């Protein structure tokens, strides 16, 4: 039997499909809230273990991990799979530390047997690591880009038993716990924008971003930057595109004066179309982009702004004030 961790009511399809390719019997672990057994049954999950404890009313990484470690000790599954999310990774890491088990994170493929052979995504996908995981219970987090094996049709829809599990916890298990929760306010514009105009070392100063702001405004997009710009204090970290900033997938990514270090590339490589503006024709960003302009962004971008304004004034008359800023 293999266990999957369910974070919300909806199971993660990749995780369930991968689990079923590794073990014919898949069961789920859920914390507190209604685990949605009908949804789980659709994914071939035959039982859900619902962890309940008054100390786990608020999210507590250590307590969640300890509860999972206790459940693993009782059920002795062949493995435990979770999505490689903030909570999924953290819960498995705590459970692994407490149970004395290895953990393989960010896996994009897993092949059963003993040991499990797996492929990890490193550096946001810049490198792939082939590894072997040997343990009595194998703990794995599954990257969103995982290659999901065809698992055949799920079991007959209907029965997913619900079992309660009450772990033995003490207050020391919940010393770190959530005391406040709020909606995220920072960085959401960048993450969801369909057009991102981004600038790096070539912008040269904080003031230099004015023309990027102007172009982004005309295109209804957001302004991003590279780590160099953040490190120089030109832009706040919430604008940073990259492995340690925000990873984005806009329709269009305009990379201006950005050389294209791996740390930046993995943050923008999921964009549908990438256009690079760079003085260096040999820059990695130019080589990897779909389109490129070789030139100084401080000349190219103002010309683009003028061109867009000119075309719009032809189409819609001289009044273009609503398009400013």
């Amino acid at each position, binding site marked *: 039997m293999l266990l999957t961790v369910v974070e919300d009511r909806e199971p993660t399809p990749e995780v369930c499909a991968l689990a079923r390719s590794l073990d014919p019997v898949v069961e789920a672990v859920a914390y507190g809230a209604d685990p949605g057994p009908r949804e789980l049954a659709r994914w071939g999950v035959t039982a859900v273990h619902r962890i309940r404890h008054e100390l786990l009313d608020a999210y507590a*990484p*250590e307590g969640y991990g300890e509860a999972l470690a206790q459940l693993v000790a009782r059920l002795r599954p062949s493995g435990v799979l979770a999505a490689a999310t*903030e909570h999924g*990774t*953290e819960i498995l*890491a*705590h459970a*692994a*530390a*407490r149970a004395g088990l290895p*953990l393989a*994170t*960010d896996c994009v493929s897993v092949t059963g047997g003993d*040991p499990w*052979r797996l492929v990890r995504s490193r*550096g946001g*996908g*810049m*490198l*792939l*690591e*082939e*590894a*072997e*995981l*040997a343990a009595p219970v194998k703990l794995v987090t599954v990257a969103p880009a995982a290659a999901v094996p065809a698992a055949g049709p799920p079991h007959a829809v209907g029965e997913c038993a619900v079992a309660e599990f009450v772990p033995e916890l003490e207050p020391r298990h919940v*010393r*770190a*716990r*959530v*005391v406040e*929760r*709020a*909606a*995220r*306010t920072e960085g959401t514009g960048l993450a969801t924008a369909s*057009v991102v105009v981004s600038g790096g070392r070539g912008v040269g100063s904080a003031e230099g971003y004015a023309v990027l702001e102007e172009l982004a405004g005309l*295109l*209804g997009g957001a302004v991003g930057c590279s780590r160099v710009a953040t490190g120089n204090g030109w832009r706040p970290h919430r604008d940073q595109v990259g492995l*340690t900033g925000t990873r984005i997938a806009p*329709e*269009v990514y305009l990379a201006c004066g950005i050389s294209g*270090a*791996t*740390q930046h590339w993995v943050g923008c490589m999921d964009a549908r*179309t990438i*256009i690079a503006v760079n003085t260096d024709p040999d820059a*990695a960003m*130019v080589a990897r982009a*779909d*389109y490129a*302009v*070789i*030139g100084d962004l401080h*000349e*190219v971008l103002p*010309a683009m702004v*003028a061109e*867009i304004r000119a*075309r719009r004034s032809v189409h819609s008359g001289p009044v273009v004030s609503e398009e400013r800023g």
Partner: protein
Amino acid sequence: MEVLVCVKRVPAAGARVPLTGDGRDIDTRHLGFTIGPHEECAVEEAVRLVAAHGGRVTVLAVGPAECAEQVRYALAMGADRGVLVDAGRSDPDPEATAGAITQAVRTLTGGEEPFDLLLFGDCSADAGHHQVGIRVATGLGLPIVSGVKALEVAGDGLRMRREAGDGVEVYRVPLPAAAAVREGLNLPRYPSLPGRLRARKAELRTVAVEPEPGGLRTVRLRQPADDRAAVVVLGHGAAAAPAVVDVLDELGVV
């Protein structure tokens, strides 16, 4: 406040990560080395905390003698003491790394002031296992919060904030504690010239440990397939603007 920061020596990759012929490792012959972005923020935070509340910052790295370069960089940023942990193996797995740090902390604090706070990067910049800090904290019986983007002393504990999913979570944790921090926590300083001179002369302590190997073994590394088409150069300088706007128009964003 006694603060310990754990840093890792990692290759400073540019636009490509070159591999050795047998794919067992990153080919570092033509690369420099650095500490990861998250860990740079951890050092900066520790230096600021000690400046505000008193105490000392100790910086620790597990690995070969060359790790001294990264420990000295942290000293140049303002850390007070440097420790090299010799684990007797080149690239230990995450369980062995955590075991090495846990043993080293026990050695360092034997008969001395214990650490009030242990800081880690959220994950290392090369392997990115996301677990060493949690394993060390568990081994030492400390509470830990990962992914921390803001940290402040509040009463006799810490108040920490992080992003998770589409929300923000705030934690309150009593000291002693640990945190795995993420870039954006602060803007790390560049080391000053006096800082660099002091760091160059500083004596580093070496602690030898023998951690047990873990159950995750790297077999080899490989580059992912790159199936993007070759770049289309639209032109040079301002004269290329109409061609770029044509492309944007075709993509429906003008």
